[in-house]
């Protein structure tokens, strides 16, 4: 039997403790062990950005980390951002600007943008495009996403 490891991690403010095999990807841990299926998996080689989460406040690919590495750390996933009844201003802006089509890449894009907007409260179009250049979207052509970010910046600075 392979060695198992205890993992204690805070996700969206909730404390979770689980026992995992070291090879378990953090993305699978969040989705299937913790049932937080809002984090999506699109490539498992770190290119598409769908699985982006905040790890100690930094946007990272959860498919390129092992769950065991999250021990003692803090994670924010899309479930911790807002609820349908109480959307985060960025989610609100995405809704208004039609930044979502199939919605598969959306959680990863939101999690990429949350820290970006904190650091760049008034970004221009090029900065926004660079910020999401590590998130692939096949539906929107990115334009309404960019518009959504601009709108969010307005909302959040108001």
């Amino acid at each position: 039997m392979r060695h198992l490891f205890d993992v204690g991690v805070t996700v969206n403010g909730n404390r979770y403790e689980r026992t995992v095999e070291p090879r378990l990807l953090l993305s699978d841990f969040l989705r299937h062990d913790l049932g937080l299926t809002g984090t999506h998996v699109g490539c498992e080689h770190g290119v598409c950005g769908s699985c982006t989460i905040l790890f100690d406040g930094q946007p990272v690919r959860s498919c390129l980390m092992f769950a065991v590495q999250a021990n003692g750390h803090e994670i924010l996933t899309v479930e911790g951002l807002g609820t349908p009844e109480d959307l985060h201003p960025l989610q609100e802006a995405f809704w208004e600007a039609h930044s979502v089509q199939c919605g598969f890449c959306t959680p990863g894009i939101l999690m990429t943008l949350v820290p970006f907007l904190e650091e760049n409260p008034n970004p221009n179009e090029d900065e926004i495009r660079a910020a999401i250049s590590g998130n692939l979207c096949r539906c929107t052509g990115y334009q309404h996403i960019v518009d959504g970010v601009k709108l969010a910046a307005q909302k959040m600075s108001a």
Partner: protein
Amino acid sequence: MKPPPFEYYAPTTVEEALVHLSEHGYDAKALAGGQSLIPTMNFRLAQPSVLVDLNNVSELFYIRPDENGGLRLGAMTRHFQVERSSLVSERTPLIYEAMPKIATPQIRSRGTFGGSIAHADPSAELGAISIALGGRFRLRNQTGERWVPANEFFIGMFTTLLEPDELLVEASFPNMPPRTGWALQEVARRPNDFALVGVAAVVTLDKKNQCQKARIVFLSVGDGPVEAHRAAETLTGQTLTPEIIHAAAETAATADIDPGSDIHASAEYRRHLAGVLTRRALDLAFERAKGRG
């Protein structure tokens, strides 16, 4: 695409990490940011039986000035930390300028300076830049440590002088002399992709604006970073006129490199790009050198 099983160690000190590496030898891999290793494992192209995770080794995370005006980077310093460091921007502006070109924001959150160097991907910017800046790497094993100049460290495709029981713990960069200019030029299909060709140039001028020293280092044209010695030689002692720069770029593209072909670029196209980019890099480095009196 799930990784194969492995044994996992998460040491908190370098010493402890070295014990595991020494014990497991070639079966073990050090896990730094994991941004190259984990995808390779997910594809099951790499199947290390032991991973020694360095992410809890706090002594490897630092950006420090060195007393001679240079810079020291702990191997586990993450790209995003380097990217935001004013010290890096002051002392090694070439590194600072390169950071946004490395992969995506999310990869830079996690990827580490030392990890990129030790991985020795021929397309990586940091290897070529380290050579261009005359950097050195500190390697440690259980019995001691050694310093290896960056231009001797890379010995082949994904291969370095690192022994299985050794860990790269630090990168060190010397003070950049006055009247030194730098540039990194690259062509990538999309901004976040590995460059088809990239070139780092560092030029130091003497008081007469003649080139005292030049270093030109390519990425993505060989098994590792490739230094254009012949081209650099043609610049030494010269006033960097457009003709001289053009000729040096030509030399770099034809005599200094022997690029290969892949699905994104033929050898001929790479050679052509090497010439174009060298010219642009030298132009810019020369301009900057003049401006830094």
